């Protein structure tokens, strides 16, 4: 989407401060655009004082944007909210107490337009006390007087004005929205600008001036509160410690409409209908949502098209081509990718859910791409075949060592793929070939210190089917890559790098445990604990699922709060993707290989027991609905075989020996009668409503989820 209709947009973050100062500032900026098409946006971040700001700002010809907040001021979020509504090719951030000289913004705008590789900052000049808003209004815009009486502020921070190209702002994904109050956000942004390959220049032009209108300082007030001090300290740590270039990776709340996806995940495939669902699901289950998934089908004939097209997620983009090889398919993907970064993924692998997040956390200055470790597993058993942390990337490591990195663990700048490209003449081995050529070209790739994927080993892998071709292509590029290295030096490097250690990777001590929750559905049973909140909208597929349970419990004697526990047994990758899509967070609390199942009892948690024991047995009808009846007692209370019993529960408590059985209760069935028919006399009974009904607002009514009966 192209929405750049203005040359320059200036955003002022604002909340309940001096309206007069704001209006003077806006007026001065509107008068400084010269021949450029400019706009001023006042981003009001949660003002609570009704001071008619909107009308006053709009009367001047500026744009007013209001954001509802929880009361906390965040300059970062305020600026982002303003830029989200901007239309300029040059984006300028400034404050509500700055006065700009005539033509200032024209000069700034023209310079960035002519060289988008430069970001501009401007030193602030402090006006004396007599030039507060009242004094300025009384004296008029006497620029000579301002020049004579002002003092130059040192180059603290970024001065109070920063101008960047729109492309730069979008690449960095704006100011860091974690930062609250203010302090450090412009320093953080400026250093990320430089890390991203744009230089920073202080404007030294006598016609470009920025004066700070005098007012009582506010920072000392802010730093008096604990919350204020904590926020300022947090901001400081971000500036000093967070070296990642791109922020708001998991969620960019105030995202402009023309922002591209953060990453293009590229899957090249051929005749992998059996595996590709898992591969795509593992991408859609990422913690990072703002992606596109480009599937290039290199001439499949096995129904891969139907499988991929069955995904109704708009992020999945399917492209069929006549078979031309994986290298050609990947080059084509790079030519159509929207994002600045390409995540390579294979059609038979599964990513860990935080893979893309980890890529960006390690993307620092001068880094062209990031990669991680990988774990090979047996497709038929789920056993770990090998755990591969990977090694430090370099041309020497690639030439003289093994298992440096797996191509499918890589995220790299899309432009780099376009420039260097896969060698389309190679049927296989084009990934190693690209790695050598990237290293030789001076591209720096760094390890994220995380595992990125689990790699399915099966009989139809390219490595198995095309081993000879792969080896031959590797030999060719290795030979060429060593051409410039003297033979004696080659011997030294071979000795040195053959012993190169693997990178330390989180989870390397127990790879089997690490991969277990993320194996394909046929290998593992998982239970998810859903973190539901009031108003959570469950995906339709889950409320109909057999394994979905939720319990809303309340200590009715003591009128305690309603507590919701929701779990999903035997959760599939489809379920996980559905939850991500509904923005419902979850934890995989349990995962077990199906091969290890003998008899498995879901457990009643310790937290549930006190509530269950306090259940009062009454005469109430349970009402309509499909219900699960859970009878609690010691095991000897239950007959050996209970008709329809579909699961047994065993208490997790160490001190109490409590067992339970459960079975489905038909609609409207009388519980007392049912228990009598079964010959059960439990010490407690409770019922879960399997499918809560939607209320008039289309939300589930959790209060109806449980009934107490006798």
């Amino acid at each position, binding site marked *: 989407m192209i929405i750049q209709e203005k040359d320059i947009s200036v955003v002022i973050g604002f909340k309940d401060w001096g309206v007069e100062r704001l209006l003077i500032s806006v007026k001065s900026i509107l008068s400084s655009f010269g021949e450029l098409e400019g706009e001023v946006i006042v981003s009001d971040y949660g003002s609570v004082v009704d001071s008619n700001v909107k009308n006053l700002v709009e009367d001047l010809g500026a744009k007013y944007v209001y954001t509802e907040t929880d009361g906390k001021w965040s300059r970062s979020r305020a600026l982002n909210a303003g830029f989200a509504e901007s239309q300029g090719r040059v984006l300028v951030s400034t404050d509500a107490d700055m006065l700009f000289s005539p033509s200032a913004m024209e000069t700034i705008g023209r310079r960035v337009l002519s060289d988008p590789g430069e970001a501009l900052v401007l030193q602030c000049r402090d006006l004396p006390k007599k030039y507060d808003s009242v004094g300025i209004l009384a004296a008029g815009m006497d620029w000579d007087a301002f020049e004579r009486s002002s003092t130059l502020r040192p180059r603290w921070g970024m001065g109070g004005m920063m101008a960047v190209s729109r492309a730069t702002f979008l690449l960095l994904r704006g100011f860091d929205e974690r930062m609250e109050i203010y302090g450090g956000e412009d320093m953080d942004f400026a250093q990320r600008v430089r890390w991203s390959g744009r230089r920073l220049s202080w404007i030294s032009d006598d016609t470009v001036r920025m004066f700070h209108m005098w007012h009582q300082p506010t920072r000392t007030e802010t730093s008096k509160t604990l919350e204020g001090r904590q926020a300022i300290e947090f901001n400081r740590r971000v500036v000093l410690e967070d070296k990642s270039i791109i922020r708001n990776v998991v969620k960019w709340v105030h995202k402009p409409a023309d922002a591209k996806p953060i990453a293009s995940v590229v899957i090249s495939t051929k005749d992998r209908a059996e595996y590709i669902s898992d591969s795509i699901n593992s991408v859609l289950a990422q913690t990072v949502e703002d992606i596109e998934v480009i599937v290039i089908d290199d001439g499949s004939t096995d129904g891969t098209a139907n499988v991929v097209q069955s995904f109704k997620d708009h992020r999945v983009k399917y492209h069929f081509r006549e078979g031309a090889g994986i290298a050609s398919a990947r080059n084509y993907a790079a030519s159509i990718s929207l994002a600045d970064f390409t995540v390579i993924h294979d059609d038979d692998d599964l990513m860990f859910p935080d893979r893309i997040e980890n890529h960006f956390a390690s993307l620092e200055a001068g880094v062209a791409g990031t990669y991680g470790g990988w774990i090979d597993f047996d497709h038929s058993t789920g056993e770990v075949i090998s755990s591969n942390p990977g090694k430090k990337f370099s041309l020497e490591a690639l030439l003289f060592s093994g298992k440096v990195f797996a191509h499918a663990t890589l995220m790299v*700048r899309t432009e780099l793929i376009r420039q260097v490209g896969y060698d389309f003449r190679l049927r296989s081995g084009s990934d190693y070939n690209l790695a050598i050529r990237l290293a030789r070209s001076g591209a720096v790739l760094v390890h994220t210190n995380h595992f990125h994927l689990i790699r399915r080993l099966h009989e139809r892998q390219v490595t198995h089917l095309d081993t000879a071709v792969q080896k031959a292509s590797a030999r060719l590029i290795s030979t060429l890559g060593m051409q410039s290295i003297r033979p004696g030096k080659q011997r030294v490097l071979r000795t040195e790098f053959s012993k190169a250690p693997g990178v330390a990777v989180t989870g390397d001590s127990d790879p089997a445990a690490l991969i277990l929750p993320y194996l394909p559905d046929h290998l593992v049973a998982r239970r998810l604990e859903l973190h539901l909140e009031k108003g959570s909208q469950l995906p339709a597929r889950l409320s109909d699922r057999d394994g979905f349970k939720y319990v809303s419990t309340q200590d009715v004697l003591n009128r305690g709060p309603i507590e919701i526990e929701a779990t999903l047994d035997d959760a599939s990758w489809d379920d996980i993707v559905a939850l991500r899509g509904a923005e419902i967070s979850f934890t995989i609390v349990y995962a077990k290989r199906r091969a290890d199942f003998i008899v498995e009892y879901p457990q009643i948690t310790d937290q549930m027991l006190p509530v269950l024991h306090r259940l009062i047995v009454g005469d109430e009808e349970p009402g309509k609905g499909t219900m699960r009846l859970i009878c609690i007692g010691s095991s000897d209370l239950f007959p050996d075989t209970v008709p329809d019993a579909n699961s047994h529960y065993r208490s997790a408590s160490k001190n109490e020996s409590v067992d339970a059985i459960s079975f489905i209760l038909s609609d409207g069935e009388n519980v007392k009668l049912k228990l009598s028919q079964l010959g059960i006399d439990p010490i407690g009974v409770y019922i879960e409503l399997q499918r809560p009904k939607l209320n008039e607002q289309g939300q589930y009514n959790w209060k109806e989820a449980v009934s107490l009966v006798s």
Partner: protein
Amino acid sequence: MKFYWERETSTGVCSLGAVPGSYDSHPLISNLLIDYIPRLVGNPRISVAFTLAFSSSISGEIEFPSKVGPELAAGVQRLLEPTAVSVTPIDLEPSQFTYGENVFVLNYASDTQPEVTWAGFDSPRCIGLNLTDMSDSFSAQYRNEVLSVPTNAGLFATMNNLGQFSHEPFIAVAVMLSEDYDVGTIRLPKGTLLDENLRRVGMLLQTCGMNLELQP
């Protein structure tokens, strides 16, 4: 920005690098690589090569590995305008620098070769300098008056200049190789048009005893 170079890295190439200062950008491709080990390179030429290679990243202070004359420093500042830069260390004592008789005829298009002809004993000798993409070519070679040298200058130019092509990194490579081939003039590829930026590049080359020309 503080510059450094390695005549021969462990992988057998020549590398020019830079440590960014407070306002410089961090290049996405950090080192200009040349698959050739230069034998002779004088300090003024290295300083000019550094400036040309990293011109799109510099802002603020520049620190060369060795002292430069005030004319060279002024040439650097002129090239980088309107970005304000200060150059160190400056040597106010006059010093000699190397001149060259020959001409490098540059080519960096993958599908063409530099056109070189011998114009007789009284004319400068023209040597074609074919700068090839390092990701697809390996080892330097000299044949029929054409020196082919793999370099990452093309990638360096586009990746470090927001996708925009720039001649400067290629000219920097030519400067690095010039002394070995007694070259004093660099002739730009056919079809190159002189603009304000190239005019300033030419003025900078003059400060290390070299010239820049367009092909007729």
